[in-house]
């Protein structure tokens, strides 16, 4: 099943269309995971990255390519992607936990310290997690980036929280 048939990405489909950071890179700290798999005319992520880690070039329908060596996992691209399709995953948060940073444009915006139910790409509850950061500066233009701490084994699955 592809995303066009079910509405969500499977991790295998994602790996086929995007070059994900290597396991070795994940071991070195936070890094962007770009879940953009269709050639649509769009390139704001390329200009958003201050480190030149995202490349689209010409034509504008080219899929973004991440240079994981240049990426520092800052999360600016997460707020700038109009498709809300970029996440930052930190598999080194603690020995047993990871963090996932995701765009969240619903009210109420969660607060740091709150416990929330983390969900996967299908919206299914995966586990409980603690909100460790909410970044919402003016430059993010009303797209807060929320970071949740979760058990490490769910880092590739969790992509948002339950609404409300």
């Amino acid at each position: 099943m592809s995303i066009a048939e079910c509405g969500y990405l499977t991790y295998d489909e994602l790996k086929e269309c995007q070059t994900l950071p290597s396991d070795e890179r994940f071991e070195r700290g936070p890094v962007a995971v770009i879940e953009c798999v269709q050639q649509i005319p769009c390139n704001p992520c390329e200009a958003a990255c201050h480190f030149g880690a995202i490349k689209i070039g010409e034509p504008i329908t080219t899929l973004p390519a991440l240079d994981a060596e240049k990426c520092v996992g800052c999360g600016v691209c997460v707020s700038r992607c109009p498709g809300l399709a970029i996440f930052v995953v930190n598999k080194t948060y603690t020995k047993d936990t990871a963090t996932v940073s995701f765009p969240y444009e619903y009210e109420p915006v969660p607060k740091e310290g709150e416990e929330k139910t983390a969900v996967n790409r299908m919206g299914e509850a995966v586990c409980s997690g603690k909100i460790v950061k909410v970044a919402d500066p003016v430059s993010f233009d009303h797209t807060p980036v929320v970071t949740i701490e979760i058990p490490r084994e769910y880092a590739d699955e969790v992509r948002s929280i339950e609404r409300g």
Partner: protein
Amino acid sequence: MSIRKADVLVIGAGPAGLSASIEAARLGADVIIVDLNMKPGGQLFKQIHKFFGSSAHHSGSRGIDIGRMLLDEAKDAGVTIWLKSTVIGIFPGKKVSIEREMDDGTSELVTLLPEEIVIATGASENVIRFKNWTTPGVMGAGAAQTMINVNHVRPGKRVVMLGSGNVGLIVSYQLMQAGCDVAALVEAAPKVGGYAVHAAKIRRAGVPILLRHTITEAVIGEDGTVSGAVIAEVDEHFKPIPGTEETIDCDVITLAAGLKPTMDLIKLAGCELTFDGVFGGYIPLHDENMETSVRGVFVAGDSTGVEEANTALDEGRIAGISAAVSLGLISGSDADERRDAIWERLDSLRMGPFGERRKKEKDHLIGLFHEEVKDQRAFA
């Protein structure tokens, strides 16, 4: 009744009309833009999401902010904006009758005598009919979007959306942002019609997307409004399969079944039309300068074929420049240089699996114009 002259009349103050008026005014034309709505911007002010596109199209900005920026640019360029103004007739000799609502609520009939006309009247929503489809609570997705994003009124608590094109996906997302629940999105086709990233957003929020399904009936509650939607699986001919019906509780049913170009004024102006399935229905034939079969009548945006705001903006720019050429405000070669750059951008927007078909069709239609119309252009 009053009579007024203008260099350019632009009909429709959406992205296409506004950008046409900005280009023509910047080149020195006296431009009046009219819109029947209370507010300018067309659909832009409903679009609270960040737009795709390139930096040249202000990508990453929200539609509402692009609308504000265009309005400022139009005012700075000296464009005269008439709101609550309806074009009620286009007569031979480019005489245009406009019914204008004045500030005191009275209306005035104005006869405008423009040298050039740009028609950018956009598109309107298609309707899907099923049992009880006229029940209060059944509405177009665009109407629901106007309620939440322009008027800040929720249409209800729990919505069933029909249609998985970008409108259905985006409005589902925005209904949840406004505090509604979306019980399900129903799509007759075997796959999602719109962009995957939009689908992924609503799936993450827990909205099921039911492919190969349709709505067969709106359930009417005790108060006479919608209390549910009966859905059913469809066969390969999109016919409901008896026995597969299921009722979903909801108080709103929104229809996102595509758009068709709004052609009334284009027809009235006498432009030659063609039927085009890719672009949503009857559309005017036009050349690469956006001029129709009637000399001095230009078109831009969704009324030339349903696409999106970025293509509307660029087609509008071309139409505005071309109107200025007709007025003698810019030489043909200077204009070509600008128009070629815009066409290049338009071509890049019409690439990839979603755009290719539109690029091919647009090229075909311009070819058709040159075969059928070019040497026999009518005078208005």
